């Protein structure tokens, strides 16, 4: 059965929370709903499902990758042109540490940003899910992704909670 996305637009966070309560009471699963706001409200403010993420793994992988890259760069370039200075070892570890540190941190940051974008499910440029520009003006959007045969029931729940407008895609 084809699925349908339905958006209910609410004027206040309270109304949005009520809509979500109504949907849960009507048997809509938490993972089928999405609350959209223009403000970062505290987690669980709408009684919504708090999504889990694996962002913290990304900087660790990035750091490891950066450290390896820096080791290849610093050790590789010194060994490729082995210039003995004052009888000291070819690999100047204290100097290498600086580059190792910077590359490690650089890649940790880059991987973190990649992780943020990936875990935020972005880029999401071609989505067909309904959206309303008034959400970034303070309204609260509640989106339900449900099977087509339940669409009428979901729309009724959203309206009962005081939706100003219903959109579907």
């Amino acid at each position, binding site marked *: 059965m084809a699925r349908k996305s339905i958006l209910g637009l609410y004027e206040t966070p309270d109304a949005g929370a009520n809509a979500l309560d109504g949907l849960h009471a009507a048997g809509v699963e938490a993972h089928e709903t999405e609350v959209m706001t*223009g403000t970062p409200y505290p987690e669980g403010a709408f009684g919504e499902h*708090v999504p889990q993420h694996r962002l913290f793994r990304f900087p660790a992988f990035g750091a490891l990758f950066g450290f390896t890259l820096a080791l290849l760069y610093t050790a590789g370039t010194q060994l*490729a042109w082995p210039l003995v200075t004052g009888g000291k070892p070819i690999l100047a570890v204290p100097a290498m540490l600086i580059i190792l540190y910077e590359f490690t941190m650089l890649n940790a*940051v880059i991987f973190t*940003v990649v992780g943020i974008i990936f875990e935020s499910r*972005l880029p999401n*440029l071609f989505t067909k899910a309904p959206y309303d520009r008034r959400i970034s*003006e303070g309204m609260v959007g509640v989106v339900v992704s449900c099977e087509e045969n339940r669409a009428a029931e979901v729309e009724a729940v959203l309206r009962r909670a005081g939706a100003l407008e219903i959109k579907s895609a």
Partner: protein
Amino acid sequence: MQQHRELTERQINTQLLNGALATPAWWKWAVIGLGLIVLAGFSTFGYMVNRGLGVTGLGRPVFWGVFITTFVFWVGISHAGIMISAILRLTQAEWRRPVTRAAELLTVFSLITALTFPVIHAGRPWRIIYWILPYDFSRGVWPNVRSPLIWDPAAIGTYLTGSTLFLYVALLPDLGNLRDRTTGFKHGLYTLLALGWRGNSRQWRLQTTAGILLSALMLPIFVSVHSIVSWDFAVTPAVEGWHSTIFAPYFVIGAVHSGVSAVVTMMALMRWLWKWDNFIRPEHFDALARLLIVVGTAWFAFTLVEILYSLYSLEGQELAFRDMQIFQWPWALLFVIFLITAFFIPVPAWLFKRVRNSIPLMFWTSISVNIGMWLERFLIIVPALSRKQPFVYVWGSYHPSLVELTLILWSLAFVGMNMLLFARFFPLIPLFEQKESQAFSSRVQIGRASVPAVLREREQE
């Protein structure tokens, strides 16, 4: 925080997007004016490349002059961004909200400007690539990773990349907002840049976590950058006044002093130019001034300790250098101006609430700090090189030429113009931060006083 004003999300959008969605009348003339100076700077640089470094005041033994001074100055200014944005974010300081983006932006443009100065200073800029990238496969000559000249681009490149990404991630919700308020080509551009931001719970959760995680990652980079810049000097034992063990923390604290002052300058300009009185309020200047009192005093202590250490060593060369730097013409005059402008005018003035809450006074004292901090870097670099030392055979003097002075002016105009261009397309104050502040704030009645209160985070159940 008694100056908080209740605004709706629509009002926040309208007021804070007044630069990006409607061009103020003065904007075009300001960009043209700054653009002409930038053009003059590029022309001067072209002339310098064509004629060689002989058109500058550089010469034996002073081979580092105002180019390197200005490089260190702009790296210092760049420390504003992470100092303000990351530390205040991690400590959940409520007054950070209107400040963060301007500070991050100042970091990015200052770093880009700073990076151009070693390139300008090289005289043959295209050869600088040999220093950094391991690409010269045919000749087998590689960058010398033992040299601070490699550490510098590594550190600044890391800081610039990190700061730019930090800025972009925090811009995503506002790009979504701009997408919703525009049509046509601009709408397409913002749609692309916003990556399809919708403002759902997952995205907001990641955005909040990202702010903290990136702040925590950027802070160690922030400390390393000016430490490494200081080692350009400190690892040189042959120059008196440079070979100092406290240079790393001394440079970092100096950078914070000049960087936070630059943020004050910028915030005053933002309030005046875009009329953001509802967002940038005297309470923010008050908080920044309190921070600057601590930072400025700590920096002054380092300045004294630096001089004390050199006197305590009782080494003839070192003492002679300090005597020249502090008591001999023309350095003595510059030294007095440096101390007065960087510390003795601004820091005692900030002890008074009337000064801290006066935006014109905060503007001028912050400018004063940065005049002093530029002179500080000049007095570290140039007098030390102009003395005859065991490894050089002449005394020298240095007078910056018109070419060098034009390029300093270029750097100021370049940063200013870039900030204005950014402000034409993107909001300088994060909209979502202001909205969050409104959503999280409330008023508590205590006796007969109505006190603003801020909700920090949800209580764990």
